[in-house]
């Protein structure tokens, strides 16, 4: 991972957020990914989301594994805490960190190799634990850093740059997350910032594991005619199931969300996510229904996008484990050590 400091230039008229920070303050070092890489668009969407949510940079913990996507945490929020872990194992670092300090906002960036092959187990169990974090899977169907091997999300029949067709069935991250009980499941496209930003913001406000799979084409190894994860193919086959609006807590909520096609969900932090259904019958709170619907869309060769499933009432890892409200790292040692008298008392049982 290379590291090139990006000069910070601020136009005096640049808009500032509630913290007095400009969008530039949420940037990181210069991206060293290939020009046109979908991942850079995801980074831009994240930057915009952080800015618009008035996040304090140093209260953000950004984590990743290994791969092209995992390089990107250096490209946003330079003043956040970063952890570039080992391949496929970012979820366990995030779970441990969150266990210790639940006050920070956790954002994990991963790829299809990182999450669906080497890290499939850790991904699944982070979903099951409902670790409170935004988890972005930048999905391009290919191993970029090692130059073009198929990943586990490559569709059957999708061809490599050299023309070889993939014959193994893909792992569908969205279906997998849903079946494992994920409480926030979305799919978007790196080329559709208008759709992606509200989803990311909703994910950042969600209590629990917010999973966002972003089709993010690899311009170098997987943006050709035979690929099902190219820009052209994704644009042609995107099927927006649901449109997401995100209304942060500080905004005045003017609309009563009663109209038939809109579902409003109030998040734990008080912000509201408005889900405008394209199909009247679609219910983003019905897990089985969502799975069925997504299956029918996929059967037509289309890619369902939007905030596909949302459940704000499920407890996260801390609720499961009944931890105190104070982050564990902030509990003074005096409260943690039982002391010599308790030890003497306990040892009566060992006699």
């Amino acid at each position, binding site marked *: 991972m290379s590291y090139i400091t990006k000069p910070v230039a601020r136009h005096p008229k640049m808009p500032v957020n509630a913290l007095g920070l400009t969008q530039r303050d949420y940037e990181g070092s210069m991206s060293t990914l290939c020009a046109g890489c979908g991942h850079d668009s995801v980074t831009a969407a994240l930057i915009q989301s952080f800015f618009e949510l008035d996040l304090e940079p*140093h209260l953000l913990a950004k984590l990743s594994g290994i791969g092209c996507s995992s390089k990107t945490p250096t490209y946003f929020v330079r003043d956040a805490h970063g*952890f570039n872990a080992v391949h496929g194992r970012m979820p366990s670092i995030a*779970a*441990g*960190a969150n266990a210790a300090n639940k006050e920070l906002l956790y954002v994990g960036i991963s790829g299809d190799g990182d999450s669906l092959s080497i890290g499939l187990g850790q991904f699944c169990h982070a979903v099951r634990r409902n670790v409170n974090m935004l988890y972005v899977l930048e999905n391009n169907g290919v191993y970029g850093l090692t130059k073009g091997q198929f990943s586990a999300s490559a569709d059957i029949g999708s061809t490599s740059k050299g023309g070889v067709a993939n014959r193994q069935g893909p792992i569908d991250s969205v279906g997998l997350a849903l079946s494992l009980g994920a409480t926030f499941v979305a799919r978007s496209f790196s080329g559709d910032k208008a759709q992606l930003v509200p989803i990311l913001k909703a994910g950042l406000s969600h209590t629990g594991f917010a999973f966002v799979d972003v089709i993010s084409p690899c311009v170098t190894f997987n943006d050709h005619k035979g690929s099902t994860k190219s820009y052209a193919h994704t644009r042609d086959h995107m099927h927006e199931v649901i449109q997401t609006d995100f209304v942060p807590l500080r905004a005045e909520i003017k609309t009563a969300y009663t109209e038939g096609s809109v579902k409003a969900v109030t998040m734990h932090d008080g912000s509201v996510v408005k889900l405008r259904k394209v199909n009247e019958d679609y219910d983003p709170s019905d897990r089985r229904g969502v799975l069925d619907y997504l299956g029918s869309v996929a059967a037509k060769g289309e890619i369902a996008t939007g905030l596909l499933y949302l459940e704000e009432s499920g407890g996260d890892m*801390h609720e499961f*484990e009944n931890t105190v409200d104070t982050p*564990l790292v902030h509990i003074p040692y005096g409260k943690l050590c039982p002391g*010599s008298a308790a030890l003497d008392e306990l040892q009566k049982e060992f006699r």
Partner: protein
Amino acid sequence: MDQPRASRVNDFALKVATVNGTGSASANGLLLQALFRMGIPVSGKNVFPSNIQGLPTWYEVRVNKDGYTARSPEFQLIVAINPESYARDIEEVVSGGWVLYDSTKELAEEFQRDDVTFIGVPLAGMCVEHFQGARTRILMKNIMYVGALVALLDIDMAIVKGMLEEKFSSKKHLMDANYQAIDLGYDYIKTHFDCPLPIRLETMDANANSVMITGNAAAALGCVYAGATVGAWYPITPSTSLMDGFTEYCRRFRVDPETGKNNFMIIQAEDELAAAGMVIGAAWMGARSFTPTSGPGISLMSEFIGLAYYAEVPSVFFDVQRTGPSTGMPTRTQQGDLMLCAYASHGDTKHIVLFPANPKECFEFAVAAFDLAERFQTPTFVMLDLDIGMNDWLIPSLEWDDSYVPDRGKVLSAEELEEIDKFYRYLDKDGDHIAARTLPGVHPKGAYFTRGSGHDKYGSYTEDSDAYTEVMDRLLAKVESAGDHVPAPEVFQGATPAPHGVVSLGGCHWAVLEARDDLAARGIHVDYLRVRGFPFNQTVEDFLSEHETVFVIEQNRDQQLRKLLVNETGCAKEGLVSVTYYGGQPLSKGHVLEGLAPHMENALMEVVS
């Protein structure tokens, strides 16, 4: 073999052979605790199969008035309850010893020995006669042999019944059944045999300030007292009871009385890889975090251990060693992971490793491990083994100093960060090879990027040779400087050095001490150094150079401690003679003497011949 002397008071070993999953563990625990409460030095070794129910299992008890608690494989008495293992059990008793067996079914001719005394008690028969239900009958058979032993060995019956009362005070029907079973066994012996046997017990007062505890429980307590808040683990024998202990003590000591909520989090991970990741993630945030595992777990965690080493994340790993390689013998003990832990992970790595010899040190070293890990910002290992971790040990009571303050190492506070111009994560400002760290969320100036990829001293990514090398050299110097801070070696030496020295570690200690005394009684003096931590320090170096020959005694095939000494000290390797035992049982005096004999004076040859 030795004939048992006419009378051996408080000096013998016995072995109980049963079937696992039948409740014999409780009966054996009862027996051990009774002897402990009689004030007699005692040790118990559980030799069990990797299985839940139906396979042969053994429990060895040694009483020794002089306080030697190492395993003794010379059994004066065998309690043979499992017909399936009769052949080998009966063969194991020393000539002149005793075999207590279940005489409900006549003992086959093939098992008869004319040099031992058979004591037949119709255990199964009496159970069928006096108890109802298959489960009760199986359980009470075990309690019944304890009753028989009470009569045969002169165990204090009031103590045994007192323990049953403590255990079953709320379940009267169980207490009655247990009392009845104890009495049935006791009365049968009293009626049919002369007792006590010449091997018998007399009350002593050796245990007034002692407790019986497993190393895993003691290590778990150490984690609680050290202030660990996050424990992540994947179940694996023989380390599982360490996390069971941590869970139990946290429930007792760490639940907030006002809210009923936990001042801790224990995560059962999906595998050991994830457990290591969780420990590192929590430590990155500033929590004291740990994972207990065994050798296979360390193998799986190795990638993460390298990350913690290179990114300098304090993390504590307990390796309760079992017999390897691969799955090996999961329920047998060994010291086979010394090299693995000292250098775990790819690339150039070296770690702090502590070697407790009993549960008392498990408790103390657990606390020390967190201090060392944070002070040196590096992975730290505490190496137990199955024998230390899972068996009950007689140890001096654990002590806690209420003035203890955790050594958090160099962690910059918000105030300190406010004062500085810019924070660089890996800058050695004090010249002691240790750079200050920050904890996430404390102050905007404290943010940095933690990475396992090449980085320079400022914390930035690098592929530059010099910048990379500079950090790697500092890491080596840092870990090596820990040698003076790990628990110091324990040296046993006369006024003038003996020509021969012994170096050993961990659970070998007790057999080595006993063998050394045995030799001294025969006029052969050897000096002894017990290594308690790695990296080694000057004391180890000096001991090696002061002795012409040093015997390195350890429980693995590949002479791993010897190799570490050769690798990490300036000693000549010809002077280090290896004595190994790696069969999976705890080390006994005999192993040591047999190992030393070929290399020493004729006098010693006679001792063991």
